[in-house]
């Protein structure tokens, strides 16, 4: 048993270190030899946690394996344009795609129009002066990596919970089996431990669909981000996605706020008059701050987990010096792998905990908004 575990561990270590060192070595050979650029861990990490227009599986430069994703761009000049991201040619920092008379430039995940048509400069040159070097505005509505991950998760949820609901209809009154059996405890936990104690038994049913959707979406998306070698999805670590989730919490809280809630916000009862000018602004700022903190907590937690794991990979490359110091690379690889496995276990816990905390705080805010006066 222990021997087998040790063999697994050793294989994993050697494989990981070899792959990391090989890709780094390849990268340094692919570049011009004029600048012996040292390995830059922060670029490497940002590249992996940032959103992208394709799913990068492995390899660097010419040997890189990508899964292309649809690019949807809209600009005033060229209108709506839909094409696959494999249309972007080249391997450097700036890649270009030729579409009709429009040339799109992809640079660090940002799409812009490369050569603005000459007629764009004829009118309104003065108000575009500030943005001249950016070219005409391009609205990027692409299905990026994060959005693709989100859609996969949403599809999976519809499938899972659709089957679950069907099994309740087809087997009424019987003990749940299989998938239903696995998910029912979580649903019951959310209802009995989060929704009912915080919102109250009467109103909990109204908010339960939202709470359940948010919980399972965050939980599954966090777990998707932890699967290695499929492109490193960072769905819940993307600020835009958590912002939408937090905006829903804010809207539901504000729209469902009763007289009691607004009364506490704008004229807190039992507070001396001279404290009011301090308390009321704090309460109002707090109303907006709560969803903002929800957003930042989720994004930062998930991204931080990815950053830590990637830092351990970077350590191998830093010590390996791009293949010059193989022994050091392999040596540090043993420790890196051990810590990475530990971090993965911790991240599995964090994946659940962050989904739980987001749902719990949302339930508390809903409870505050709908609470009836009882004194």
């Amino acid at each position, binding site marked *: 048993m222990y021997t087998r575990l040790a063999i697994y561990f050793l294989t994993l270590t050697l494989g990981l270190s070899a792959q990391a060192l090989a890709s780094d070595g390849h990268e340094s050979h692919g570049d011009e030899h004029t600048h012996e650029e040292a390995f830059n861990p*922060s670029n490497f990490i*940002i590249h992996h946690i940032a959103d992208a227009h394709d799913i990068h599986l492995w390899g660097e430069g010419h040997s890189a394996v990508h899964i292309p994703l649809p690019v949807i761009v809209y600009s005033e000049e060229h209108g709506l344009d839909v094409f696959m991201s494999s249309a972007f040619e080249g391997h450097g920092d700036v890649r270009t795609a030729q579409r009709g008379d429009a040339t799109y430039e992809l640079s660090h995940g940002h799409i812009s129009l490369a050569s603005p048509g000459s007629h764009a400069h004829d009118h309104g040159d003065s108000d575009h002066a500030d943005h001249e070097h950016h070219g005409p505005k391009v609205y990027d509505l692409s299905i990026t990596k994060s959005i693709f991950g989100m859609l996969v998760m949403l599809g999976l949820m519809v499938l899972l919970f659709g089957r679950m609901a069907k099994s309740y209809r087809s087997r009424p009154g019987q003990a749940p089996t299989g998938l239903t059996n696995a998910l029912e405890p979580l649903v019951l936990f959310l209802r009995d*431990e989060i929704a009912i104690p915080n919102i109250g038994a009467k109103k909990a049913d109204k908010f339960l669909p939202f709470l359940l959707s948010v919980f399972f979406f965050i939980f599954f998306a966090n777990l998707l981000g932890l699967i290695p070698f499929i492109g490193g999805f960072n769905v819940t670590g993307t600020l835009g996605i958590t912002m939408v989730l937090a905006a829903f919490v804010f809207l539901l809280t504000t729209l469902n706020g009763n007289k009691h809630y607004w009364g506490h916000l704008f004229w807190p009862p039992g507070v001396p008059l001279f404290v009011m000018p301090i308390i009321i602004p704090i309460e109002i700022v707090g109303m907006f701050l709560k969803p903002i*903190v929800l957003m*930042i*907590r989720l994004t*930062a*937690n998930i991204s*931080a987990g990815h950053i830590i794991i990637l830092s351990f990979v970077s350590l191998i490359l830093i010590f390996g010096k791009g293949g010059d110091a193989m022994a050091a690379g392999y040596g540090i690889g043993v420790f890196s792998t051990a810590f990475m496995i530990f971090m993965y276990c911790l991240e599995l816990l964090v994946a659940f*905990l962050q989904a*739980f*905390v987001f749902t*719990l*705080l949302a339930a*508390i805010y809903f409870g505050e908004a709908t609470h009836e006066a009882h004194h």
Partner: protein
Amino acid sequence: MELLTILLEIGQGLAGLGAGAAAIGAGLGVGRIGGSALEAMARQPEVAGDIRSNMIVAAALVEGVALFGVIVCLLVALG
């Protein structure tokens, strides 16, 4: 080396210090919350469930503040 580059380098170093300070604050806060919750649970095991969920909420709030610090440090270090 120009003064500006020196200042930028110092700023990057300070960002690291800032991340450390944020970790100290969060560590103190979460440690205290966890310790107190364990004491409370040992005294009254029958309400352990309530204490646990309150503990997680409080820890999440502390962590949220610490992550604000970490985000600022990241922006300084990478920006």
